[in-house]
């Protein structure tokens, strides 16, 4: 049998996705996890602490998958694309986890919101590699990567709220644009979306910005 803590956190993810955070009681959690109330209070002082621990575990899963996909690629636009794809695929496969991480967390209170922000900002170093890649990188405003992360999570949350969880992978082009446009501008960002699902030639994306006008069309050798 898996450890009680692990069962409890998984139960929290499921129940909160089903009933919402406010309606979830400690009784729901102990029943779903098959643990006693005494055990619950040995592990966490209250419902909020349990929820935040569940959130942290969800974030760990997401970050592991994003970073693994990101690091498997060499050039920044492909790295961003791979990381975003891993994020979307994980969220689409795990709707309960998706809701907890991207939607429910913001309705729990100030402590949870701060935790949410800290988690989101773990993505900023990945996006900020765009600075080294972009010709105008050093001139961009200080908070560029934070805003790019905010754009990505905002678009994902909108789709989750609209019940489009299974279709999340279709959002890849939109997210890619949101991440790339502040670093490379709209022309290069649109071109990068067009390179699309087919694995682009690494050499074809080394010169973003105005230089894209002279680039070979997507998919050409």
């Amino acid at each position, binding site marked *: 049998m898996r450890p009680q803590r692990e069962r409890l956190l998984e139960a929290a993810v499921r129940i909160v996705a089903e009933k919402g955070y406010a309606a979830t009681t400690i009784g729901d959690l102990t029943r779903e996890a098959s643990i006693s109330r005494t055990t619950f209070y040995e592990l966490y002082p209250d419902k909020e602490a349990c929820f935040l621990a569940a959130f942290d575990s969800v974030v760990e899963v997401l970050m592991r998958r994003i970073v693994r996909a990101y690091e498997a690629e060499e050039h920044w636009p492909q790295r961003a694309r791979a990381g975003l794809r891993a994020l979307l695929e994980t969220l689409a496969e795990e709707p309960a986890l998706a809701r907890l991480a991207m939607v429910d967390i913001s309705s729990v209170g100030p402590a949870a919101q701060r935790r949410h*922000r800290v988690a989101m900002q773990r993505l900023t170093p990945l996006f900020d590699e765009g600075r080294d890649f972009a010709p105008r990188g050093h001139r961009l405003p200080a908070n560029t990567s934070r805003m790019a992360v905010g754009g990505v999570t*905002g*678009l994902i949350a*909108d789709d989750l709220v609209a019940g489009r969880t299974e279709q999340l992978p279709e959002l890849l*082009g939109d997210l890619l644009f949101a991440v790339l446009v502040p670093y*490379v501008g*709209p*022309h290069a960002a649109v071109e990068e979306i067009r390179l699309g699902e087919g694995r682009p030639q690494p050499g074809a994306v080394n010169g973003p910005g105005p230089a894209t006008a002279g680039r070979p069309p997507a998919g050409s050798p």
Partner: protein
Amino acid sequence: MPAIRSPHESGEAPQGELGGLIERERLPSGREDLPEPIVAHSQRERILVAMADSCANKGFGATTIADIVRPAGVSRATFYELFEDKEDCFQAAMELSLADAMERVVGAFSPDKPWATLVRDSAAAFLDLLASRPAFARMAMVEAPASGQRASEMHAAGKRVLLTLLDRGRDEAIEPAIPASAGRAAIAGAESLIVGQILAGNAERLRDLLPDIVYITIVPYLGQEEALRHSREVEA
């Protein structure tokens, strides 16, 4: 929580008049409808200010009626004469701050201003308003989206107004194929920066974010050089 979509995304015809837009979104519109300034000292306004303060300190969920009536210097009975319950009071406080915020945006609006100037002026007015009233800023930007159906709908309606204004940049866009969601992503990015600053307790310094917000909202439409130029110009 309703999803935010621009008219561009939903296929509606763009609305010419901002006034009509606000009316369609059921936001408080005409100036004569606007509540008295928050500094006025009626019981009702003291309650609304206390509500905002308590939300700023402990969040809407943890706020009790006692947290509101004590600092407002009114009795529970008075509270319930004026408001049905906590949610009703929160709603009224939201309406007050949203009407105020929208009035600032409308104030910055003028049909003969170039689009980028309109974006700069609206963003500056909006940030100045939030910075001058930190408790209300927190309520409108942090608590509202998570505080029940009515408040989150108002918050979403306010965002749709801003999005429709921003997406007018499509008329001047240098790249025709930018995704339909580009404006929504830019606003989400700006919003997340503002919320972060408020949560960090730095609402008074929200104006410092203006160059960043001008950049992220202009860059999808006019490109990096123009966005950087406008961003630098507001830095002063």
